[in-house]
């Protein structure tokens, strides 16, 4: 048997449960800090870089210090065609942050993510676990106000 098909590249430690554990830690701590990931590395026997790599791959596993409310604006094609950039522009104006940043009062983090599965309501965004669809730049201020 040659090298083909002999397990995965990173088969050390308990990789199968990593995503579930990360989700659990996220629920407990709100974001995945270095301390959280380091303790997870000890627990699973996986190297920290591997856990960091997995966490940064997923938009829903915020590694950087995240704000209290995380705004995820869909940046995929249907939303983009329906002016997702206008929506992002309106959020930027409202909060004064770029995608990938958190407001100074740590109330909001803004992220542009891949499809959130709400193409029928394009352009759409999520704030925490709630989906907001059929957005227009004008609607943003009011939605954000409800989180203040």
């Amino acid at each position, binding site marked *: 048997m*040659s090298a*083909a*098909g002999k397990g995965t590249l*990173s088969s050390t430690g308990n990789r199968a449960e990593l995503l579930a554990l990360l989700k659990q830690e996220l629920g407990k701590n709100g974001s995945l800090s270095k301390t959280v990931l380091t303790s997870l590395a000890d627990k699973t026997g996986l190297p*920290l*870089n591997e856990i960091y*790599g997995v966490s940064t791959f997923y938009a829903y596993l915020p590694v950087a210090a995240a704000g209290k409310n995380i705004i995820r604006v869909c940046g995929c094609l249907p939303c983009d065609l329906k002016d997702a950039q206008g929506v992002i522009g309106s959020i930027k104006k409202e909060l004064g942050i770029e995608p990938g940043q958190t407001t100074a009062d740590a109330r909001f983090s803004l992220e542009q993510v891949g499809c959130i599965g709400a193409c029928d309501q394009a352009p759409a965004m999520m704030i925490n676990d709630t989906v907001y669809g059929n957005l227009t730049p004008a609607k943003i201020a009011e939605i954000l106000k409800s989180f203040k």
Partner: protein
Amino acid sequence: MANVRLSIDGKSIKVRDGTTILEAAEACGITIPTFCHIKGLLPTGVCRVCVVEVKGSKTLMGACHTPVAEGMIVSTHTPRVVAARKVIVELMLTGHTGDCVNDTNAENCVLHNLASDYQVGAPRFNVKAPRFYPAEESNPYVRRDLSKCVLCRKCVKACHEIARKDVLSVGYRGFKSKVVTGFDEALNTEACRDCGICIEHCPTGAMSAAPGFKARKGGAVR
């Protein structure tokens, strides 16, 4: 284990079941270019330079990770294959933002040699923001210049499978993908010592011996 008969570039060959197309081609003296593959280690198939045409398959297949099958008819250098390889090399060059013009070691860059073999010139693709990372010189053994990195994952594989250190992983996604250490920190001595296996396997010079380390001669103190 059963044997499989297949044909590569018109040559009929019998190999053991489970052999990859690349290994079978090597066995009958046919060279298929590779880039991300390390002989003897698990294939990742990320670079696609080794693609070949398999009769009956709609798409080109990666030779380094496709196992042979009975009656397979493989062509390794058809115009379609060569055209695909050219674009693949061009795409990799697009993400390779090193100072290769001034680099005295550029002839060691596997990517540049591939570009020269396949007559690929300056990439024609526009890049929104070039992948640029400041060179890391904090490690006395390894100098990392991630701008030159084309994410072939050879260092990740070598560190995991040969050195068994697991210091390197791929983090982020898409254009932002990057080889990370720890919590995306500098490759410090705590995490990585002088094994140098990643340096040996890096095809682009993104990981190289630190200048001081290279100059050291004379061996250990007796």
